[in-house]
Protein backbone atom coordinates (compact mmCIF):
# COMPACT_ATOMS: atom_id res chain seq x y z
CA UNK A 1 0.00 0.00 0.00
CA UNK A 2 2.04 2.90 -1.17
CA UNK A 3 1.22 6.53 -0.70
CA UNK A 4 -1.12 6.21 2.25
CA UNK A 5 -0.44 9.25 4.33
CA UNK A 6 -2.87 8.41 7.09
CA UNK A 7 -4.08 4.99 7.99
CA UNK A 8 -6.11 4.22 11.05
CA UNK A 9 -7.53 0.93 12.18
CA UNK A 10 -10.10 0.82 14.92
CA UNK A 11 -8.78 4.10 16.26
CA UNK A 12 -10.52 5.06 19.45
CA UNK A 13 -10.20 7.68 22.14
CA UNK A 14 -11.87 7.94 25.52
CA UNK A 15 -11.95 10.83 27.93
CA UNK A 16 -12.87 9.82 31.45
CA UNK A 17 -15.44 7.27 30.41
CA UNK A 18 -16.85 9.24 27.50
CA UNK A 19 -15.86 7.71 24.20
CA UNK A 20 -15.09 10.50 21.79
CA UNK A 21 -14.13 8.24 18.92
CA UNK A 22 -15.17 4.69 18.25
CA UNK A 23 -13.17 2.24 16.23
CA UNK A 24 -12.46 4.51 13.33
CA UNK A 25 -11.04 3.11 10.13
CA UNK A 26 -9.77 5.73 7.76
CA UNK A 27 -7.25 5.87 4.96
CA UNK A 28 -6.10 9.06 3.36
CA UNK A 29 -3.83 9.00 0.34
CA UNK A 30 -1.08 11.36 -0.62
CA UNK A 31 -2.31 14.46 -2.36
CA UNK A 32 -5.92 14.18 -1.24
CA UNK A 33 -7.97 16.99 0.20
CA UNK A 34 -10.49 15.69 2.70
CA UNK A 35 -13.14 17.65 4.55
CA UNK A 36 -14.43 16.40 7.88
CA UNK A 37 -17.95 17.42 8.76
CA UNK A 38 -20.12 16.69 11.72
CA UNK A 39 -22.10 18.32 14.48
CA UNK A 40 -20.45 19.66 17.59
CA UNK A 41 -19.16 16.95 19.81
CA UNK A 42 -18.93 14.46 16.99
CA UNK A 43 -15.26 13.94 17.59
CA UNK A 44 -13.77 15.96 14.74
CA UNK A 45 -11.28 17.86 16.86
CA UNK A 46 -10.38 14.70 18.71
CA UNK A 47 -9.65 12.95 15.44
CA UNK A 48 -7.46 15.76 14.26
CA UNK A 49 -5.51 15.95 17.44
CA UNK A 50 -4.95 12.22 17.39
CA UNK A 51 -3.61 12.55 13.87
CA UNK A 52 -1.34 15.39 14.94
CA UNK A 53 -0.02 13.17 17.75
CA UNK A 54 -1.19 15.67 20.32
CA UNK A 55 -3.31 12.93 21.83
CA UNK A 56 -2.58 9.30 22.26
CA UNK A 57 -5.16 6.78 21.13
CA UNK A 58 -6.97 4.76 23.75
CA UNK A 59 -7.45 1.98 21.25
CA UNK A 60 -6.50 1.01 17.76
CA UNK A 61 -3.60 1.81 15.52
CA UNK A 62 -2.52 4.95 13.77
CA UNK A 63 -0.04 4.93 10.95
CA UNK A 64 1.33 8.12 9.49
CA UNK A 65 3.45 7.98 6.37
CA UNK A 66 3.31 4.23 6.66
CA UNK A 67 4.98 4.06 10.02
CA UNK A 68 3.16 3.20 13.17
CA UNK A 69 3.07 6.16 15.49
CA UNK A 70 4.11 5.07 18.90
CA UNK A 71 5.77 6.68 21.83
CA UNK A 72 5.69 10.33 21.01
CA UNK A 73 5.79 10.30 17.26
CA UNK A 74 8.53 12.87 16.87
CA UNK A 75 9.50 11.61 13.46
CA UNK A 76 5.96 11.92 12.13
CA UNK A 77 5.55 15.42 13.54
CA UNK A 78 8.27 16.71 11.31
CA UNK A 79 6.06 16.11 8.30
CA UNK A 80 2.76 17.24 9.79
CA UNK A 81 1.47 20.78 10.05
CA UNK A 82 -1.45 21.72 12.28
CA UNK A 83 -3.63 24.77 12.14
CA UNK A 84 -6.33 25.31 14.72
CA UNK A 85 -8.50 28.24 15.69
CA UNK A 86 -5.90 28.89 18.37
CA UNK A 87 -2.89 30.33 16.63
CA UNK A 88 -0.09 28.87 18.80
CA UNK A 89 1.72 32.15 18.36
CA UNK A 90 3.44 33.98 21.17
CA UNK A 91 1.58 37.26 21.48
CA UNK A 92 4.56 39.29 22.63
CA UNK A 93 6.79 38.29 19.75
CA UNK A 94 6.56 39.47 16.18
CA UNK A 95 5.53 37.18 13.32
CA UNK A 96 9.11 37.06 12.19
CA UNK A 97 10.30 35.99 15.60
CA UNK A 98 7.52 33.46 16.01
CA UNK A 99 8.18 31.90 12.63
CA UNK A 100 11.89 31.94 13.22
CA UNK A 101 11.37 30.09 16.48
CA UNK A 102 9.21 27.42 14.92
CA UNK A 103 11.55 27.12 11.95
CA UNK A 104 14.38 26.33 14.29
CA UNK A 105 12.30 23.93 16.33
CA UNK A 106 11.48 22.05 13.14
CA UNK A 107 15.10 22.16 12.04
CA UNK A 108 14.35 23.99 8.83
CA UNK A 109 17.51 24.62 6.87
CA UNK A 110 18.17 28.29 6.17
CA UNK A 111 15.45 29.49 8.53
CA UNK A 112 15.92 33.18 7.89
CA UNK A 113 15.25 32.97 4.16
CA UNK A 114 12.36 30.60 4.64
CA UNK A 115 10.72 32.90 7.15
CA UNK A 116 11.10 35.89 4.88
CA UNK A 117 9.64 33.99 1.94
CA UNK A 118 6.72 32.76 4.00
CA UNK A 119 5.89 36.19 5.34
CA UNK A 120 5.70 37.47 1.81
CA UNK A 121 3.62 34.58 0.66
CA UNK A 122 0.97 35.09 3.33
CA UNK A 123 1.01 38.82 2.79
CA UNK A 124 2.26 39.87 6.20
CA UNK A 125 5.21 41.95 5.07
CA UNK A 126 3.90 45.16 6.52
CA UNK A 127 3.27 43.63 9.94
CA UNK A 128 6.29 41.42 10.25
CA UNK A 129 7.84 43.48 13.00
CA UNK A 130 4.91 44.15 15.23
CA UNK A 131 3.92 41.89 18.12
CA UNK A 132 1.31 39.34 17.23
CA UNK A 133 -0.84 40.82 19.96
CA UNK A 134 -1.47 43.82 17.73
CA UNK A 135 -2.64 41.87 14.70
CA UNK A 136 -6.24 41.39 13.75
CA UNK A 137 -7.66 37.90 13.79
CA UNK A 138 -7.38 37.54 10.05
CA UNK A 139 -3.72 38.51 10.04
CA UNK A 140 -3.05 36.31 13.02
CA UNK A 141 -4.58 33.36 11.25
CA UNK A 142 -2.42 34.03 8.23
CA UNK A 143 0.60 33.98 10.45
CA UNK A 144 -0.64 30.79 12.03
CA UNK A 145 -0.93 29.24 8.60
CA UNK A 146 2.64 30.29 7.91
CA UNK A 147 3.62 28.65 11.17
CA UNK A 148 1.90 25.45 10.14
CA UNK A 149 3.68 25.49 6.79
CA UNK A 150 7.11 26.62 7.90
CA UNK A 151 8.61 23.15 7.66
CA UNK A 152 6.90 22.28 4.37
CA UNK A 153 4.79 19.50 5.80
CA UNK A 154 3.49 16.70 3.66
CA UNK A 155 0.28 16.61 5.62
CA UNK A 156 -1.63 19.67 6.74
CA UNK A 157 -4.32 19.26 9.38
CA UNK A 158 -6.75 22.09 9.89
CA UNK A 159 -9.23 22.33 12.73
CA UNK A 160 -11.98 24.80 11.88
CA UNK A 161 -9.56 27.28 10.38
CA UNK A 162 -12.22 29.66 9.12
CA UNK A 163 -13.72 30.34 12.53
CA UNK A 164 -13.89 34.01 13.32
CA UNK A 165 -12.52 35.22 10.01
CA UNK A 166 -14.21 37.86 7.94
CA UNK A 167 -15.02 37.37 4.26
CA UNK A 168 -11.76 38.76 2.92
CA UNK A 169 -9.64 36.78 5.30
CA UNK A 170 -11.61 33.63 4.57
CA UNK A 171 -11.18 34.06 0.86
CA UNK A 172 -7.50 34.57 1.24
CA UNK A 173 -7.11 31.56 3.48
CA UNK A 174 -9.10 29.43 1.05
CA UNK A 175 -6.94 30.42 -1.88
CA UNK A 176 -3.78 29.72 0.08
CA UNK A 177 -5.07 26.32 1.02
CA UNK A 178 -5.83 25.59 -2.58
CA UNK A 179 -2.32 26.65 -3.51
CA UNK A 180 -0.82 24.47 -0.82
CA UNK A 181 -2.87 21.51 -1.94
CA UNK A 182 -1.88 22.10 -5.55
CA UNK A 183 1.76 21.87 -4.57
CA UNK A 184 1.24 18.33 -3.35
CA UNK A 185 0.42 18.65 0.32
CA UNK A 186 -2.29 16.39 1.66
CA UNK A 187 -5.06 18.30 3.42
CA UNK A 188 -7.46 17.21 6.08
CA UNK A 189 -9.81 19.90 7.29
CA UNK A 190 -12.68 20.05 9.73
CA UNK A 191 -15.13 22.81 9.19
CA UNK A 192 -18.70 23.88 9.67
CA UNK A 193 -18.58 25.90 6.49
CA UNK A 194 -19.92 23.40 4.01
CA UNK A 195 -19.52 25.61 0.98
CA UNK A 196 -15.86 26.17 1.65
CA UNK A 197 -15.32 22.54 2.43
CA UNK A 198 -16.79 21.41 -0.87
CA UNK A 199 -14.90 24.11 -2.65
CA UNK A 200 -11.46 23.18 -1.44
CA UNK A 201 -11.79 19.44 -0.91
CA UNK A 202 -12.56 16.54 -3.16
CA UNK A 203 -13.55 14.04 -0.54
CA UNK A 204 -15.57 14.32 2.61
CA UNK A 205 -16.27 12.27 5.67
CA UNK A 206 -19.04 12.84 8.15
CA UNK A 207 -18.70 12.00 11.81
CA UNK A 208 -21.51 11.80 14.28
CA UNK A 209 -21.09 10.83 17.89
CA UNK A 210 -17.61 9.55 17.30
CA UNK A 211 -18.47 7.27 14.42
CA UNK A 212 -17.68 7.55 10.76
CA UNK A 213 -21.01 7.71 8.99
CA UNK A 214 -20.15 8.71 5.46
CA UNK A 215 -17.06 8.73 3.34
CA UNK A 216 -16.94 9.58 -0.32
CA UNK A 217 -16.01 11.93 -3.16
CA UNK A 218 -17.81 15.22 -3.34
CA UNK A 219 -16.29 16.81 -6.38
CA UNK A 220 -19.35 16.01 -8.41
CA UNK A 221 -21.93 16.87 -5.78
CA UNK A 222 -23.69 20.14 -5.47
CA UNK A 223 -23.95 21.93 -2.19
CA UNK A 224 -27.63 21.11 -1.89
CA UNK A 225 -27.13 17.43 -2.49
CA UNK A 226 -24.45 17.25 0.11
CA UNK A 227 -26.44 19.21 2.63
CA UNK A 228 -29.32 16.82 2.24
CA UNK A 229 -27.04 13.88 2.78
CA UNK A 230 -25.54 15.52 5.83
CA UNK A 231 -28.83 16.37 7.46
CA UNK A 232 -30.16 12.91 6.81
CA UNK A 233 -27.25 11.41 8.63
CA UNK A 234 -27.10 13.79 11.52
CA UNK A 235 -30.77 13.80 12.31
CA UNK A 236 -31.03 10.10 12.93
CA UNK A 237 -31.87 9.39 16.56
CA UNK A 238 -29.36 7.61 18.75
CA UNK A 239 -29.17 3.86 18.91
CA UNK A 240 -31.19 3.40 15.75
CA UNK A 241 -29.66 1.13 13.19
CA UNK A 242 -26.10 0.39 12.40
CA UNK A 243 -23.40 2.70 11.28
CA UNK A 244 -24.57 3.69 7.90
CA UNK A 245 -21.26 3.67 6.11
CA UNK A 246 -21.64 4.62 2.56
CA UNK A 247 -18.40 4.33 0.65
CA UNK A 248 -18.64 4.79 -3.03
Amino acid at each position, binding site marked *: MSGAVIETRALGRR*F*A*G*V*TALHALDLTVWAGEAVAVFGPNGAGKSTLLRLLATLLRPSAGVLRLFEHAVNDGGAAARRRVGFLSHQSFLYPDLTPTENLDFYARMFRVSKPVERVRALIERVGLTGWAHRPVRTLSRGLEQRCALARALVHEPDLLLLDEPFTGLDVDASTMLASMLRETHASGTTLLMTTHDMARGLDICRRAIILT*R*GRLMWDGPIAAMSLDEFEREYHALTQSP*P*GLGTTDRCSR
Partner: protein
Amino acid sequence: MRKLADVILPPVTLAAMLSAIYMVFVYVPTDKVQGIVQRIFYFHVPLAIMAFVAFGTVAVASVMFLWRGTRTWDRVAHAAAEVGMLFCTLVLITGPIWARPVWGTWWTWDARLTTTLILWLIYAAYLMLRSTSGPGDQGARYAAVLGIVGAVDIPIINRSVYWWRTIHPAVLVTREGSSGLADPRMQSTLGICFLAFFLLFLWLLWVRNENMRLGDEVEALRQQALGQA
Protein backbone atom coordinates in the same frame (compact mmCIF):
# COMPACT_ATOMS: atom_id res chain seq x y z
CA MET B 1 -9.55 -12.21 45.03
CA ARG B 2 -12.77 -10.34 45.44
CA LYS B 3 -14.30 -13.17 47.40
CA LEU B 4 -11.35 -13.22 49.71
CA ALA B 5 -11.49 -9.53 50.34
CA ASP B 6 -15.21 -9.20 50.70
CA VAL B 7 -15.82 -12.18 52.86
CA ILE B 8 -12.73 -12.74 54.91
CA LEU B 9 -11.15 -9.35 55.35
CA PRO B 10 -13.88 -7.53 57.27
CA PRO B 11 -14.37 -10.05 60.05
CA VAL B 12 -10.66 -10.61 60.43
CA THR B 13 -10.06 -6.89 60.63
CA LEU B 14 -12.83 -6.51 63.14
CA ALA B 15 -11.42 -9.29 65.27
CA ALA B 16 -7.97 -7.79 65.16
CA MET B 17 -9.20 -4.32 66.03
CA LEU B 18 -11.29 -5.59 68.90
CA SER B 19 -8.38 -7.53 70.29
CA ALA B 20 -6.17 -4.53 69.89
CA ILE B 21 -8.56 -2.30 71.76
CA TYR B 22 -8.93 -4.83 74.49
CA MET B 23 -5.22 -5.24 74.83
CA VAL B 24 -4.52 -1.57 74.86
CA PHE B 25 -7.12 -0.67 77.41
CA VAL B 26 -7.28 -3.70 79.60
CA TYR B 27 -4.47 -6.10 79.08
CA VAL B 28 -1.32 -4.08 78.91
CA PRO B 29 0.07 -2.65 82.11
CA THR B 30 0.29 1.07 82.64
CA ASP B 31 3.66 2.52 81.89
CA LYS B 32 5.44 3.51 85.05
CA VAL B 33 6.94 6.67 83.74
CA GLN B 34 4.33 8.12 81.48
CA GLY B 35 1.16 6.86 82.98
CA ILE B 36 -2.08 6.17 81.23
CA VAL B 37 -1.39 8.53 78.36
CA GLN B 38 1.25 6.18 77.11
CA ARG B 39 -1.46 3.91 75.78
CA ILE B 40 -1.91 6.24 72.88
CA PHE B 41 1.48 5.04 71.74
CA TYR B 42 0.01 1.70 70.69
CA PHE B 43 -2.29 3.44 68.26
CA HIS B 44 0.02 6.21 67.29
CA VAL B 45 2.97 4.19 66.08
CA PRO B 46 1.10 1.75 63.82
CA LEU B 47 -0.92 4.63 62.42
CA ALA B 48 2.28 6.46 61.61
CA ILE B 49 3.88 3.47 59.92
CA MET B 50 0.75 2.84 57.90
CA ALA B 51 0.55 6.47 56.82
CA PHE B 52 3.95 6.09 55.23
CA VAL B 53 3.16 2.66 53.85
CA ALA B 54 0.07 4.17 52.29
CA PHE B 55 2.15 6.77 50.56
CA GLY B 56 4.47 4.06 49.35
CA THR B 57 1.42 2.39 47.89
CA VAL B 58 0.43 5.63 46.22
CA ALA B 59 3.89 5.90 44.71
CA VAL B 60 4.00 2.36 43.37
CA ALA B 61 0.47 2.58 42.01
CA SER B 62 1.34 5.91 40.40
CA VAL B 63 4.32 4.45 38.60
CA MET B 64 2.22 1.52 37.42
CA PHE B 65 -0.53 3.84 36.29
CA LEU B 66 1.78 6.01 34.22
CA TRP B 67 3.42 2.96 32.80
CA ARG B 68 0.40 0.82 32.11
CA GLY B 69 -2.42 3.33 31.98
CA THR B 70 -5.12 1.08 33.36
CA ARG B 71 -7.68 2.70 35.56
CA THR B 72 -7.23 0.09 38.26
CA TRP B 73 -3.85 1.44 39.28
CA ASP B 74 -5.21 4.93 39.38
CA ARG B 75 -7.99 3.84 41.69
CA VAL B 76 -5.58 2.11 43.99
CA ALA B 77 -3.44 5.23 44.16
CA HIS B 78 -6.44 7.41 44.89
CA ALA B 79 -7.86 5.09 47.50
CA ALA B 80 -4.49 4.69 49.17
CA ALA B 81 -4.08 8.46 49.27
CA GLU B 82 -7.42 8.93 50.99
CA VAL B 83 -6.78 6.25 53.56
CA GLY B 84 -3.25 7.51 54.05
CA MET B 85 -4.50 11.03 54.59
CA LEU B 86 -6.90 9.77 57.22
CA PHE B 87 -4.18 7.88 59.05
CA CYS B 88 -1.76 10.76 58.77
CA THR B 89 -4.30 13.15 60.25
CA LEU B 90 -4.84 10.77 63.14
CA VAL B 91 -1.12 10.54 63.72
CA LEU B 92 -0.79 14.29 63.88
CA ILE B 93 -3.68 14.46 66.34
CA THR B 94 -2.68 11.59 68.61
CA GLY B 95 0.93 12.71 68.63
CA PRO B 96 0.49 16.03 70.40
CA ILE B 97 -2.09 14.56 72.76
CA TRP B 98 0.55 12.14 73.87
CA ALA B 99 3.37 14.63 73.77
CA ARG B 100 1.87 17.32 75.91
CA PRO B 101 1.67 15.44 79.20
CA VAL B 102 4.87 13.52 78.55
CA TRP B 103 7.20 16.15 77.15
CA GLY B 104 5.44 19.25 78.28
CA THR B 105 5.06 20.60 74.80
CA TRP B 106 2.64 20.11 71.95
CA TRP B 107 5.20 19.97 69.19
CA THR B 108 8.89 19.68 68.50
CA TRP B 109 10.59 19.97 65.18
CA ASP B 110 12.44 16.72 65.15
CA ALA B 111 12.86 14.73 61.99
CA ARG B 112 10.02 12.30 62.40
CA LEU B 113 7.31 14.76 63.31
CA THR B 114 8.34 17.24 60.70
CA THR B 115 8.48 14.65 57.98
CA THR B 116 5.05 13.44 58.97
CA LEU B 117 3.73 16.96 58.85
CA ILE B 118 5.14 17.44 55.38
CA LEU B 119 3.70 14.11 54.34
CA TRP B 120 0.35 15.41 55.44
CA LEU B 121 0.82 18.51 53.30
CA ILE B 122 1.73 16.39 50.32
CA TYR B 123 -1.37 14.28 50.85
CA ALA B 124 -3.45 17.42 50.97
CA ALA B 125 -1.87 18.66 47.78
CA TYR B 126 -2.50 15.29 46.14
CA LEU B 127 -6.17 15.25 46.98
CA MET B 128 -6.65 18.85 46.06
CA LEU B 129 -4.89 18.30 42.75
CA ARG B 130 -7.32 15.54 41.99
CA SER B 131 -10.35 17.58 42.74
CA THR B 132 -9.35 20.71 40.89
CA SER B 133 -8.05 19.17 37.72
CA GLY B 134 -9.88 19.37 34.46
CA PRO B 135 -11.99 16.61 33.05
CA GLY B 136 -10.70 13.29 31.95
CA ASP B 137 -7.53 11.56 32.85
CA GLN B 138 -5.69 14.73 33.61
CA GLY B 139 -6.29 14.67 37.34
CA ALA B 140 -5.18 11.08 37.55
CA ARG B 141 -1.99 11.72 35.68
CA TYR B 142 -1.03 14.85 37.56
CA ALA B 143 -1.68 13.13 40.85
CA ALA B 144 0.49 10.25 39.74
CA VAL B 145 3.32 12.65 39.00
CA LEU B 146 2.96 14.13 42.46
CA GLY B 147 2.87 10.67 44.00
CA ILE B 148 6.14 9.74 42.40
CA VAL B 149 7.95 12.99 43.10
CA GLY B 150 6.64 13.03 46.65
CA ALA B 151 7.82 9.53 47.36
CA VAL B 152 11.29 10.29 46.06
CA ASP B 153 11.39 13.46 48.07
CA ILE B 154 10.23 12.15 51.45
CA PRO B 155 13.50 10.43 52.34
CA ILE B 156 15.42 13.53 51.29
CA ILE B 157 13.17 15.71 53.41
CA ASN B 158 13.66 13.41 56.34
CA ARG B 159 17.41 13.53 56.00
CA SER B 160 17.55 17.28 55.70
CA VAL B 161 15.33 17.90 58.68
CA TYR B 162 17.36 15.46 60.71
CA TRP B 163 20.56 17.31 59.92
CA TRP B 164 18.84 20.56 60.61
CA ARG B 165 17.92 19.45 64.08
CA THR B 166 21.03 17.65 65.17
CA ILE B 167 23.38 20.46 64.36
CA HIS B 168 21.49 22.63 66.76
CA PRO B 169 21.53 21.76 70.41
CA ALA B 170 18.46 19.82 71.32
CA VAL B 171 15.96 22.19 72.82
CA LEU B 172 13.79 19.53 74.28
CA VAL B 173 14.05 15.94 75.15
CA THR B 174 14.41 14.16 71.88
CA ARG B 175 12.07 11.36 71.22
CA GLU B 176 12.91 8.09 72.79
CA GLY B 177 13.20 5.05 70.64
CA SER B 178 10.09 3.12 69.95
CA SER B 179 11.40 0.13 71.79
CA GLY B 180 12.46 0.21 75.36
CA LEU B 181 9.39 -1.78 75.99
CA ALA B 182 10.67 -4.12 78.56
CA ASP B 183 7.43 -5.80 79.40
CA PRO B 184 6.55 -8.60 76.97
CA ARG B 185 2.90 -7.71 77.31
CA MET B 186 3.69 -4.29 75.89
CA GLN B 187 5.51 -5.85 72.99
CA SER B 188 2.71 -8.21 72.17
CA THR B 189 0.18 -5.40 72.42
CA LEU B 190 2.18 -3.34 70.00
CA GLY B 191 2.42 -6.31 67.69
CA ILE B 192 -1.31 -6.88 67.71
CA CYS B 193 -1.90 -3.21 67.09
CA PHE B 194 0.40 -3.28 64.08
CA LEU B 195 -1.53 -6.18 62.70
CA ALA B 196 -4.86 -4.58 63.43
CA PHE B 197 -3.99 -1.31 61.71
CA PHE B 198 -2.41 -3.06 58.80
CA LEU B 199 -5.60 -5.00 58.26
CA LEU B 200 -7.61 -1.86 58.73
CA PHE B 201 -5.54 -0.18 56.06
CA LEU B 202 -6.08 -3.04 53.67
CA TRP B 203 -9.75 -3.19 54.36
CA LEU B 204 -10.33 0.56 53.97
CA LEU B 205 -8.24 0.51 50.83
CA TRP B 206 -10.31 -2.33 49.49
CA VAL B 207 -13.64 -0.74 50.34
CA ARG B 208 -12.68 2.59 48.84
CA ASN B 209 -11.34 0.93 45.74
CA GLU B 210 -14.52 -1.08 45.28
CA ASN B 211 -16.48 2.07 45.86
CA MET B 212 -14.65 3.81 43.05
CA ARG B 213 -14.83 0.83 40.75
CA LEU B 214 -18.58 0.66 41.14
CA GLY B 215 -18.77 4.37 40.54
CA ASP B 216 -16.87 3.92 37.30
CA GLU B 217 -19.18 1.14 36.23
CA VAL B 218 -22.24 3.21 36.94
CA GLU B 219 -20.77 6.04 34.93
CA ALA B 220 -20.03 3.72 32.01
CA LEU B 221 -23.57 2.39 32.09
CA ARG B 222 -24.93 5.88 32.19
CA GLN B 223 -22.93 6.84 29.13
CA GLN B 224 -24.16 3.79 27.35
CA ALA B 225 -27.75 4.60 28.15
CA LEU B 226 -27.30 8.06 26.74
CA GLY B 227 -26.05 6.55 23.52
CA GLN B 228 -22.53 7.74 23.87
CA ALA B 229 -20.63 4.55 24.48
